[in-house]
């Protein structure tokens, strides 16, 4: 209703000729102003702001309503319709309120039932807690009793330990007064130690396995260095071990001493060694020189000078002036029907840088009358030193023709290879036997 009144007031305020807004849809309850006849004076027709304390006020002196522009009957009908609608809404609200009240009642009942269950559960939990509390009290009581027992046991052990510590202290005092101090001490009796061994001396240095030991079962004192015995004091006198030397004095080339190398006893002066082999031989180290007295020279009684078994024999004042002899032989026969060379003897010789005289010899044959057998000598399979193809007349059943030759070769240090080959020229069986090579180093003056 207030809305409608405000609308009417608004229409009254509008200037003449303007259209008023309809406040309802459908029937015109406030008709166009053109149906009104009114005069608007110069004074403002409306005062106030329309708010509490400042209500809108229509100045009657300013507005004069004439005619029947307001449809009162329609307004009443609208008001009635609005009222009926409001009543229906109020009735609907009342019905909704009743429904809500019912729902609330049902929820209240459910809540009451749940609160009752909660109360019952709370009672049960309280009972359980009480039972657990009682059990916990019993356990605490047991723990307290056990603690008391343990304390008693510990007290007993403590007493025992104290007694033992006291005994240990007394024993330590005794030990300190009777044992050797590692930091240094004076021993009033014998110091007896294990015999030890060559590799683990009884008395040894801190840094290496060198020291003194006592060979088991004999009155010996051994001295070893780096796990090996070098020297021993024995009832028969001092002994020097194999490969050890006993130097009397001197350093480097000026040392002189005695010792053993392998199974040889050695007298050493500087780098010169005299070695005694067994009881009847002696030898001098290589590169040493035997000098006579200038009158009688050097004499070897009823014997000879042997090589060292390596195939080389050096004689002379120095290596450069020496003669080196190396030899190879194949005495057995080699037969062939080959018309190309086959090998009879192959030998390899170790040589030093220098000049060498190579000599060879063999015996050649062919079992067919007037047929040829060839032989050939090669150096390093490349240089042919000699080649011949003699024919044979069978004066006897096995005629052999001696063949030989020589060659001078200059070579660098290393090895040289010599071959002697044979073949037949065309027919028969060729034969080569008693093949020999001799290689000797020479100095060409």
């Amino acid at each position, binding site marked *: 209703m207030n809305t409608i009144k405000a609308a009417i007031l608004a229409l009254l305020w509008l200037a003449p000729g303007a259209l008023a807004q309809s406040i309802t849809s459908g029937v015109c309850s406030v008709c166009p102003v053109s149906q009104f006849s009114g005069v608007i004076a110069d004074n403002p027709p409306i005062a106030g702001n329309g708010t509490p304390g400042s209500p809108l006020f229509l100045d009657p002196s300013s507005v004069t309503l004439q005619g029947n522009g307001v449809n009162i009957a329609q307004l009443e009908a609208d008001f009635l319709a609005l009222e009926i609608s409001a009543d229906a809404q109020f009735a609907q609200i009342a019905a909704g309120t009743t429904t809500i009240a019912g729902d609330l009642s049902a929820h209240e009942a459910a809540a009451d039932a749940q609160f009752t269950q909660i109360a019952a559960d709370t009672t049960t939990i309280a009972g359980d807690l009480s039972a657990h509390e009682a059990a916990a009290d019993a356990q605490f009581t047991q723990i307290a009793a056990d603690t008391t027992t343990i304390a008693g046991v510990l007290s007993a052990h403590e007493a025992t330990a104290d007694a033992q510590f006291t005994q240990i202290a007394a024993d330590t005092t005794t030990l300190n007064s009777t044992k050797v101090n590692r930091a240094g001490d004076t021993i009033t009796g014998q110091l007896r130690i294990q015999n030890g061994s060559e590799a683990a001396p009884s008395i040894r240095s801190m840094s290496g396995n060198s020291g003194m030991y006592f060979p088991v079962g004999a009155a010996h004192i051994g001295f070893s260095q780096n796990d090996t015995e070098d020297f021993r004091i024995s009832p028969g006198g001092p002994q020097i071990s194999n490969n050890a030397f006993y130097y009397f004095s001197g350093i480097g080339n000026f040392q002189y001493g005695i010792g053993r190398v392998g199974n040889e006893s050695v007298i050493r002066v500087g780098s010169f060694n005299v070695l005694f082999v067994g009881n009847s031989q002696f030898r001098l180290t290589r590169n040493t020189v035997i000098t006579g007295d200038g009158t009688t020279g050097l004499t070897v009684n009823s014997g000879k000078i042997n090589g060292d078994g390596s195939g080389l024999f050096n004689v002379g004042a120095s290596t450069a002036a020496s003669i080196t002899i190396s030899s190879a032989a*194949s*005495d*057995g*026969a*080699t*037969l*062939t*029907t*080959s*018309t*190309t060379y*086959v090998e009879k003897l192959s030998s390899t010789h170790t040589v030093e840088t220098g000049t060498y005289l190579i000599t060879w010899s063999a015996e050649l044959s062919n*079992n*067919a009358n007037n047929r040829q057998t060839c032989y050939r000598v090669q150096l390093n399979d490349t240089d042919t030193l000699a080649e011949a193809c003699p024919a044979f007349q069978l004066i006897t059943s096995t005629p052999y023709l001696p063949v030989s030759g020589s060659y001078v070769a200059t070579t660098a240090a290393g090895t040289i290879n010599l071959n002697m080959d044979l073949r037949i020229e065309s027919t*028969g*069986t060729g034969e080569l*036997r008693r093949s020999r090579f001799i290689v000797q180093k020479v100095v060409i003056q």
Partner: protein
Amino acid sequence: MSIYTFSKSARPDLQALTEAIAVSSMANKNLGFLRWDENKESLEVHMQSDLSPDDEAILAGLAANS
């Protein structure tokens, strides 16, 4: 060249062995040459190509009787 080596301590007659191979029943008779080494006591038969097992057996018999 295929080489067949036989142990042979006694001096063989290589000419006779050459002729025996030539008249033998060996299918392959292409002999290269023969070589006997007294020191090694071995007889080498140098054939120009490989022998069949049958020929090899025949050759072994000839070498043993040479």
